[in-house]
């Protein structure tokens, strides 16, 4: 009797283990599809975004799967701040999404470590792209990211706040950093209680602009493109802006950084100006219900043609090097950047399309704000200098490092010289 019971037990356990094993296999094979054949596939598609982009992207994916019924696309939308943690974990676990919305800050992190697919090998088509918009996606000679939209850093200005404070709009073709500080201080002083001059513009893109105007770069081929003496004036400028009350208090800046775009001071009408990327103008306008004015970022010399502007890939389309369906992936990316159908859904939300034919196709449909941005991108051509290189591995976090030392400075815990020294030291040691 006892023997029978034990046999029964062993059998039961064996069955349970077998079931577990089977279900584990089932869990592991998702995203596989019938790889290789190329005619049917299920793809994971990951992006970060805002409300507008999430809606557009889902609509475009639906349009694609309707036209290609044999392709299934699982959507993985996300927030920028958590997107990268998730992607790193997925990549480590061999579960990276097939199609990955990539950022310049991380492309060499993944590309140099061979985590991204060589897209040209599977027929990526960038033949219609405007000059200079393709190479930012090339790492070690391989095209691992297709430019998803052209972008440039801008200062956005809320005309209503300026009118209320009775402050004249600045002339962005001649203004210097010092003048930006004065305008900000004036807005804060005259705008009424609760109004701040500008959201802190001291982010890595503006440091890059400042360094370029002084003949340096954030990164060059051998690593960090600047040294301590180059950034002491930068930290001094941050301190000066704070002393003039052109930017909010350190503690307000900290709270501001945790907020989403629609809750930030510019969108809620509390700030006169803020630094944004040109493709975000539409989202800021939607969130605030105000038409923001697009301004050039200032220059050291007071001459906009010397401000060393650049076009950046707002984001890129990459693919996991371990995808089981490289052909299907590249086919979808090609459709995304080269078909009028997709361009008409996404318009200029990810930036101005680098494919000139797509730009021409969507131009009549652009909102006034997007049309203004497209014109702005066109207008600043004479002000462009060489495109900055992609941050090397370990360089993607340079903005966070700088932000931390700026925080110490603004909270009065250090001085510009020490902050500069510590920032450079840490940025250097983080590069791999």
């Amino acid at each position: 009797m006892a023997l029978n019971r034990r046999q029964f037990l062993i059998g039961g356990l064996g069955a349970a283990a077998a079931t577990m094993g089977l279900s584990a296999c089932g869990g592991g094979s998702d995203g596989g599809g019938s790889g290789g054949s190329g005619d049917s596939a299920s793809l994971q598609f990951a992006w970060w975004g805002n409300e507008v982009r999430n809606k557009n992207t889902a609509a475009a994916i639906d349009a694609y799967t309707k036209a290609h019924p044999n392709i299934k696309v699982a959507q993985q939308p996300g927030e920028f701040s958590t997107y990268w943690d998730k992607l790193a974990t997925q990549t480590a676990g061999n579960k990276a999404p097939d199609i990955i919305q990539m950022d310049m800050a991380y492309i060499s992190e993944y590309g140099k470590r061979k985590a991204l697919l060589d897209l040209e090998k599977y027929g990526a088509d960038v033949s219609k792209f405007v000059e200079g918009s393709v190479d930012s996606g090339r790492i070690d000679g391989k095209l691992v990211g297709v430019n998803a939209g052209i972008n440039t850093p801008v200062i956005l200005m809320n005309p209503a706040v300026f009118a209320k404070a009775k402050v004249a709009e600045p002339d962005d073709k001649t203004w210097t950093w010092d003048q930006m500080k004065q305008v900000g201080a004036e807005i804060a002083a005259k705008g009424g209680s609760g109004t701040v001059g500008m959201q802190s513009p001291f982010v890595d893109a503006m440091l890059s602009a400042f360094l370029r105007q002084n003949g340096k770069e954030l990164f060059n081929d051998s690593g960090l493109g600047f040294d301590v003496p180059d950034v002491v004036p930068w930290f001094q400028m941050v301190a000066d802006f704070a002393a003039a009350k052109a930017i909010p208090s350190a503690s307000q800046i900290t709270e501001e950084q945790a907020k989403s775009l629609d809750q930030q001071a510019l969108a809620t009408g509390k700030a006169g100006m803020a630094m944004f990327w040109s493709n975000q103008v539409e989202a800021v306008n939607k969130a605030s219900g105000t038409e923001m004015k697009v301004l050039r970022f200032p220059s050291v010399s007071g001459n906009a043609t010397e401000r060393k502007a650049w076009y950046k890939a707002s984001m890129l389309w990459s693919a996991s090097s371990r995808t089981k369906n490289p052909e299907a992936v590249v086919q979808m990316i090609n459709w995304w950047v080269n078909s009028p159908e997709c361009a008409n859904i996404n318009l200029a939300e990810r930036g101005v399309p680098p494919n000139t034919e797509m730009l021409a196709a969507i131009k009549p449909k652009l909102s006034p704000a997007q049309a203004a941005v497209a014109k702005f991108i066109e207008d600043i051509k004479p002000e462009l200098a060489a495109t900055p290189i992609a941050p090397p591995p370990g360089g993607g976090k340079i903005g966070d490092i700088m932000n931390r030392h700026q925080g110490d400075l603004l909270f009065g815990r250090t001085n510009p010289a020490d902050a500069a020294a510590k920032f450079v030291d840490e940025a250097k040691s983080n590069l791999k």
Partner: protein
Amino acid sequence: MSVVSELSHIRAPKAKSAEERRARRKAAGRDNKAAYLFLLPWLIGLFVITIGPMLASLYLSFTDYSLIESPTWTGLANYTRMLDDARLHQALQVTFTYVLVSVPLQLAVALGVAMLLNQGMRGLPLYRSVFYLPSMLGASVAIALLWAQMFGTDGLVNQVLRLFGVDAHTGWISTPQYALSTLILLHIWTFGSPMVIFLAGLRQIPQMYYEAAAVDGASRWHRFRKITLPLLSPIIFFNLVLQIIGAFQSFTQAHVVSNGTGGPSDSTLFYTLYLYQRGFGEFEMGYAAAMAWLLVVIVGAATAINFFASRYWVFYDD
């Protein structure tokens, strides 16, 4: 040895022959096998989910591992690097401050509330649940977000202060001097689970001790000091050990409240948060694994010290 086999030993008279002994050993062996079979699910879990990954992380701590590429052996490099990592030292300072301040305060509040509830009041189950509720929620993202709102520059706390005429414009979570204290407050607020354990412990103390002491004219304080504390000391010890281990591993609150930065000015850079930043944000999983092992050593040492010190103050009434 299983309970069944022990029982069979008691039942059976002394073995008479070698043959009988062999048969009995066989029976015992069969019982052991059954025990291991019943333990199997747990053993599989232990080896696959706990010990396996731990050994893997021990190996990774001696490597340079970027998550994306395979690890390369670097010996002790990760451990020697810790010596000059200023942010690691900051993280240790923040975490030790948090543990040393919040755990004693939380236990004091828990004991205080437990003693109040032990007065035999009406509606005890309701109060017990109400006080226990925060510890169910305290580590959750929702509460951390709520905390961030309440203690913001224009949050509830400042608005209440303004009602009383205080011109309050301090961002309690965005100013380096106060940010950690705000998180400590959040931790103290989650005193529910040690409180419930204290409450159970208080119920175990025989009422006659108090009665005898009252007859002898002992004051309330003396009764607390000479009866409650000694008899409750094993429970206090238990809570202390568990809470210290838990506090060293705090992560969610700081991650949510500081938006993952550990800011402002690294003032809420908990050890686990920094470990997470290194591992997942900066692709240094080897270094993160080494940090995890340092934390194991620290928590182990803290627990060992606790057990050693317990000899001098924990009183077992048996």
